[in-house]
């Protein structure tokens, strides 16, 4: 019947657009990754426009693999994504279980909790790194200074003061530093995405079988056993969803890293590509291909997990 053609026709624009979107830029990236191509070169001006005569084979890939930033960027990408996933899922489950039962003001608490999810990443980063985490002017700085001042006051007390003078001065932490900037990014993204996890888990908890729980209570299951053997397995599927969606978003984290430290000590793959792309397009493209391969690994794994549940 004609029923067959129409659905194809209706899908066609979406499919074609995405196909073009995927193939053309990706094809160009692939091409650039095999040629010498830089934006500015006084010495070799012929390299500044893409051309097959500048063929470099796997040279760009070797260059990228040898640069010490590359390995750091991969490690850092994974460190950031995995930390965020771990924290958001744990916090998400705990908070969801906490606020799932009715209590006065439940609706308001929900609204308060979801708010961070809607904040734009650029604002999120600016807000956290300056107003909250800044070691001098941010709340962190002010709080540490306040504690030190308070301790100073205690040291003036006769007799007891001797005890407090043994205490060290507290040092505020600079989150723009090499060792700490990834922590700042993890903190702010966790703040933004935990609400998402909470709401999805809550939605799921509401569909939990109450009779099953009552049966468990009659069977003598403790609160912990109920959580461990009924609630947690019930949350398996939503956890998979939360992990998948967040992986999609966090593998391409960029604004936060740029704003926190301009990538100082904390480059992930997208950031490294951005840096290369300031001049060495060949290297940027080769890094891009590595990023695609990494993403594919993650994608195959995640899509399998979610795909099963999709068509039911």
């Amino acid at each position: 019947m004609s029923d067959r053609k129409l659905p194809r026709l209706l899908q066609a624009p979406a499919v074609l657009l995405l196909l073009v979107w995927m193939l053309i830029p990706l094809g160009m990236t692939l091409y650039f990754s095999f040629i010498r191509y830089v934006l500015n070169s006084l010495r070799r001006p012929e390299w500044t426009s893409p051309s097959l005569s500048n063929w470099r084979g796997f040279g760009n890939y070797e260059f990228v693999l040898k640069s010490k930033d590359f390995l750091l960027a991969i490690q850092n990408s994974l460190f950031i994504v995995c930390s965020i996933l771990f924290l958001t899922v744990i916090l998400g489950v705990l908070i969801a279980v906490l606020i799932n039962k009715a209590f006065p003001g439940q609706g308001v608490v929900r609204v308060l909790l979801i708010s961070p999810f809607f904040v734009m990443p650029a604002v999120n980063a600016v807000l956290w790194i300056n107003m909250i985490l800044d070691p001098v002017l941010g709340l962190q700085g002010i709080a540490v200074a306040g504690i030190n001042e308070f301790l100073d006051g205690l040291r003036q007390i006769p007799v007891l003061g001797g005890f407090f003078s043994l205490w060290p001065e507290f040092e505020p932490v600079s989150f723009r530093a090499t060792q700490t900037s990834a922590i700042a990014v993890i903190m702010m993204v966790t703040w933004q995405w935990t609400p998402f996890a909470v709401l999805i888990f809550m939605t799921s908890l509401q569909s939990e079988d109450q009779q099953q729980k009552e049966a468990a209570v009659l069977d003598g299951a403790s609160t912990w056993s109920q959580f461990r053997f009924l609630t947690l397995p019930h949350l398996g599927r939503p956890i998979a969803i939360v992990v998948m969606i967040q992986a999609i978003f966090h593998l391409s984290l960029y604004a936060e890293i740029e704003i926190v430290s301009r990538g100082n000590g904390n480059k992930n793959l997208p950031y490294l590509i951005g840096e290369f792309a300031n001049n060495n397009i060949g290297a940027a493209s080769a890094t891009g291909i590595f990023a695609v391969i990494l993403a594919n690994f993650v994608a195959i794994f995640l899509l399998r997990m979610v795909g099963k549940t999709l068509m039911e």
Partner: protein
Amino acid sequence: MAIVAQSSKFSTYGRPVLAWGVGLLFFFPIFWMVLTSFKTDADAVKPEHLIFFTPTFDNYLNMTDNYDYWRFATNSVISAVSATAFTLFVSVPAAYAMAFNPSRSTKDVLMWMLSTKMLPAAAVLYPMIFLAKSIGLYDTHILIITVLSLINLPIAIWMLFTYFKEIPKDIIEAGKMDGVNTWGEIKEILVPLAWGGIASTALLVFIFCWNEAYWTVRLTTIDAATLSKLIEGNRAPEGLFFGRLSAVSTAAVGPIVVLGWFCQKQLVQGLTFGAVK
């Protein structure tokens, strides 16, 4: 019995206190931003004015002078609204076809669509800049609208697909028996029934467009630059302008946060891709 008694005590006092604590903790950074936006830049960094200060609206009144706020805000509105409209225009028919006339390849097509979302944007950054510049679209609304639509298309189709699938197939078939054609099916049955789903998809796409901070930063300089670019360009590492920065940040996220409050339930349901009921 002791455990039961204890847990009920927890329910009465512990749970509300703890829950409110967590809720306020998560909301605190936003509250702090809004509070700071009413302080002068000088007061904003003084510990003695942490909580007690003379509120001022100057930061908001001077947003145009300080940051050219309205220019960026207008760009954000233009790109987010147009991209949302275009995304829906393409995704509603596609999701409709997939939900009600699935073929054996439908699942794979959906998976493939989502996998394009996993394609790291950075991998194709330079080709995009190159293409945009060579056809003269760099830093234009058209470019930003196109890119925003494309990156949100997979999510929109997935969300709509799950909403449409909730509509019983029987109803669509009853429509067929009653003599509706395809256009009638969309107009008379699908849209009225999935109105909530379509609206929340639109809303979520709009939010993602509004908040997008990779392409909008890298593919614009000034003419099509959005609020993300504005904020990113004023990270103020020395913190001299906390007051005015808070004001412009509040103005950038305020509308979206409020919008999100009203629709959070539907949004979450759509985002679970139907895997959580």
